[in-house]
């Protein structure tokens, strides 16, 4: 039967990509349907119970700046918060939170249920209704047809999912949940390049069977950072510590002697796993000289004893898992509540996507999350938000939006995916961002919230909070630039005393803030003592901008060049092979990737300045001919 309601956007999947997609589409006004196999698992964290981390909290803050749910939900569910890289410079500073799985699911489900324009339906999708290369709707398991011109697929590891424990394997989307094989079959028939990836989880433990006294304790940092700019630490639930233990020579011996029963080493697993998240058997083999590997013991939540021993993900048989776990300090009598497993799943080559996350071959079909070869909740959420937004915009007849590489990690992520593709599950690292110094978590709102408001993603509450912050920063900047220390005057003497910096000519306080030895705290108290009204958080934010200013200016020139290249569009069917002078290798690469602009072409590996000049000339000729035709 056909469901009576016509939707603008249907989102398939209720994970981190799916929920952000559905929320974003609904937020900008699209009549949206979220289809999930199980409403109970909406917002489920299938891997470790932590959100954020280096590069990843940058993404979360950007999702937050664009009105997404992930950061607020993390604050409501976070049971341990820490700042990473606190001494390595503000650009690379990051926030990590351990989250209570149940609280997190509740927070996400509450956000979904509270959203206007958003309907939820529980049913597995088995087919897409495609007519003349465009989407018209989807069919569910029970034969129900939902109609919508835009469909966002966020199927995670469920497409053709196969779970391995030892040499045994069976179909599965997550432990205990069925894969989406009918849909996988259907998608494999589309002209999209499909391949397999692999990821894994460790066995989970019963906390009552573990001795924490043998482990190092890691508590929340106080005062606690928050994930969302809108939160304060008061929304955090009770905080509990994590623990740290290590594998040892005996653990490694147990693993080494069982490699003949490892699906990884016997060839049963063909998918490629992430190099930065290796299984414990991988670590033991590849780094044979190490006699210990860290195990980070994360609590699964406040209302459960279950633990997630991060660092020993494995697909070895259960008896080996148990022996290996019990060889670890503190785990001697540990009870395993769920065995670790590896999962192989289908992903689609993201080079077949446009930067809007819409597939090139099927109009109205969008992909987000692990289906694109990425890994991580944060990477999924960022893509989901973008795909949901652009699906809704397309439904309303508006052009897509995607931030540039110099505007957001979201832009780096999408650009890397659509121009370079993936060779292993893609995870964000700050080193992927060439404009890392400007893409900070502290300024995610300054970079994106105005745009988010314009797109309709940002509600009134967030907008007025942002406007207040911006007013304070502008006022603070004016004050700091206006107050001048003159050698010998009272202010200069106090500053020299407080900072140890010499002042040998008249200089504004903002200029002084640029010096490496000067920090916001000492400067603020000197100013406040002299009756100059400034807030330390404002000065601290301005300090970051002052310290990076020289680098920003250097990058501005580079960005201006990139921008100019972004303005030169290449038609979707631009014929790269017709360009004489390009090597055949380059022609093939460009034809396969079909960059949408000169700037994107410039990032295809192997494109030289000369090749770019050729492209520029041909793009201009092409545009001229189009005009004449």
């Amino acid at each position, binding site marked *: 039967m056909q469901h009576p309601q016509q939707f603008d956007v249907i989102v398939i999947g209720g994970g981190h990509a799916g929920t952000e997609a559905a929320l974003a589409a609904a937020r900008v006004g699209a009549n949206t349907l979220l289809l999930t196999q199980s409403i109970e698992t909406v917002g489920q964290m299938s891997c470790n119970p932590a959100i954020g981390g280096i590069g990843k909290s940058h993404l979360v803050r950007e999702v937050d700046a664009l009105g997404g749910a992930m950061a607020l939900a993390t604050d409501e569910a976070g049971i341990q918060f820490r700042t990473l890289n606190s001494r*390595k410079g503000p650009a690379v500073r990051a926030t990590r939170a351990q989250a209570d799985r149940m609280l997190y699911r509740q927070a996400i489900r509450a956000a979904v249920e509270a959203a206007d324009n958003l309907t939820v339906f529980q049913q597995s999708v088995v087919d897409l209704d495609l007519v003349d290369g465009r989407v018209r709707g989807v069919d569910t398991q029970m034969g129900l047809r939902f109609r919508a011109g835009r469909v966002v697929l966020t199927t995670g590891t469920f497409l053709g999912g196969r779970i391995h424990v030892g040499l045994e394997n069976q179909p599965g989307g997550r432990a205990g949940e069925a894969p989406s094989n009918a849909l996988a079959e259907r998608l494999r028939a589309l002209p999209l390049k499909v391949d397999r990836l692999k990821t894994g989880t460790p066995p989970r433990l019963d906390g009552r069977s573990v001795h924490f006294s043998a482990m190092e304790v890691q508590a929340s940092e106080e005062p606690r950072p928050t994930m969302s700019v809108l939160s304060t630490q008061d929304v955090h639930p009770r905080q509990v510590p994590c623990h740290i233990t290590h594998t040892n020579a005996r653990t490694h011996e147990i693993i080494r002697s069982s490699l003949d029963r490892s699906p990884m080493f016997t060839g049963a697993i063909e998918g490629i796993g992430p190099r930065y998240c290796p299984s414990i058997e991988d670590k033991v083999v590849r780094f044979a000289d190490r006699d210990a590997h860290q195990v980070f013991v994360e609590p699964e939540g406040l209302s459960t004893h279950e633990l997630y021993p991060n660092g020993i993900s494995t697909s070895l048989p259960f008896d080996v898992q148990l022996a290996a776990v019990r060889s670890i300090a503190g785990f001697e009598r540990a009870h395993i509540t769920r065995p670790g497993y590896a999962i192989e799943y289908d992903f689609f080559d993201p080079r077949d996507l446009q930067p809007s996350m819409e597939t090139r071959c099927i109009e109205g079909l969008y992909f987000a999350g692990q289906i694109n070869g990425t890994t991580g909740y944060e990477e999924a959420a960022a893509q989901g938000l973008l795909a949901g937004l652009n699906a809704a915009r397309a439904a309303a007849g508006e052009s897509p939006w995607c931030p540039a590489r110099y505007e957001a990690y979201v832009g780096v992520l999408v650009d890397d995916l659509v121009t370079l593709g993936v060779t292993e599950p893609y995870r964000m690292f*700050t080193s992927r961002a060439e404009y890392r110094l400007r893409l900070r978590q502290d300024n995610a709102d300054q970079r994106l919230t105005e745009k988010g408001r314009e797109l309709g993603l940002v509600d009134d509450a967030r907008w007025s909070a942002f406007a207040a912050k911006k007013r304070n920063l502008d006022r603070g900047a004016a004050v700091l630039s206006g107050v001048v220390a003159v050698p010998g005057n009272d202010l200069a003497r106090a500053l020299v005393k407080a900072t140890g910096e010499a002042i040998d000519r008249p200089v504004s306080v903002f200029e002084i803030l640029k010096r490496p030895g000067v920090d916001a705290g000492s400067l603020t108290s000197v100013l406040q003592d002299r009756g100059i009204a400034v807030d330390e958080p404002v000065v601290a934010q301005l300090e970051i901008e002052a310290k990076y200013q020289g680098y920003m200016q250097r990058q501005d020139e580079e960005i201006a060049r990139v921008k100019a290249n972004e303005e030169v569009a290449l038609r979707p069917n631009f014929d790269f092979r017709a360009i004489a002078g390009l090597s055949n290798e380059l022609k093939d690469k460009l034809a396969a990737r079909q960059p949408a602009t000169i700037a994107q072409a410039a990032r295809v590996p192997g494109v030289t300045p*000369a090749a770019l000049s050729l492209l520029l*000339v041909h793009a201009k000729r092409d545009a001229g001919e189009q005009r004449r035709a």
Partner: protein
Amino acid sequence: MRVSGADLTDIARLIVGRLPAPRHAELATFADAEGAAIDRGIALYFRAPQSMTGEDVLELQGHGGPVVMDRLLERVCALGARLARPGEFTERAFLNNKIDLAQAEAVADLIDSASKRAARAAMRSLDGEFSARVNQIDRAVLDLRVYLEAAIDFADEEIDFLAESDAAAQLDAIASLIEGLVDESRRGEALREGLDVVIAGPPNVGKSSLMNRLLAENRAIVTDIPGTTRDLLKADIEIQGIPIRLTDTAGLREGGDRVETIGVERARSAMAAADLVLTVEDASVAAIGGGSESGGLASKFDPSTGRSLRVRNKIDLTDEPPGDGGDMVRISALSGAGVDALRAAIAKVAGVAPGEGAYLARRRHLDALTAALGHCRAATRRVDEGCGDLAAEELRSLQARLGEIVGLTTVDDLLGEIFGSFCIGK
């Protein structure tokens, strides 16, 4: 020299001393940073958009020659210009609508051929040792970045990347590698100092004829200098603008009389001091398998150093084709056949290949190395200040500049090194 850009008024004023009237040829002195004259010539200024490229264009026509050219180029670049990419003037003209759309194909072809030429020139200037050393520096930078980037992206690993990296010492080592290479590259250009070229070989192979041939065709600019001894004859000539000090030696042969032995000794020391030795042989003797004696001293000069050039003279007697055959240059000093090829081969040793290609390529490499050195020093300061993120940024820029010479290091290369070097991840 042609300069094109959005606004050239400052550059024009600083070099010419005034803003020349648009579209008028003006006689001017081209000044260096201290105001001293580099050259005197014609300055032509075209204001945008009435110019070849559609931008401000400044043309400086001087007396030329690589030395003057080099100084002028250095000056313009110091004022904010950069070397044009191959075909870039035409490209800009096209993009600014100064060239008809119908000519796009021709423009593209030009860029293509110009860049292929430049690539070949760069290849030539990238001799094995130079590129090996840039690669060595690039590797050292990557090795250090592996630590700095891992320290940032994998801060929760139990590895003290920063302590292990020994960053300050590594940066010092990198800086001195770059400095050494920059110094040597400057010397290697042989543009300012010129080149010492010695003609050597057994008696009667035509060394003096070759000397005379090279002198004769340079008559207009040659000053003969009488030999300081009766057996060494010296003369200054110029090949493609490079000053060449040419020395003709006594025939190399063991066991002559006392005067001749002294001559041979002198020839030996001249050869040892030379930038380039032309070892001349007699084609008619070589053709009948003779000339083993001619090996003698000349062959002791190791050709692999690039300081020796084999010249087969008298090909008019054997009908061999003239020209540069790779392992030797075949000439006839008598008829002049092949002498042009010999001249080009000498210029190549000086770092100046036919045309400007290799020279510009080398200039670009030097620019890149100099900028890289700046980033290296800045990185050292940032490490001192404890700014890990800024040190990493300087190193990224440093590697990007080296990448202009030896190819780009991508983020994937970097991550691959990190994952290969350390056990990372949970």
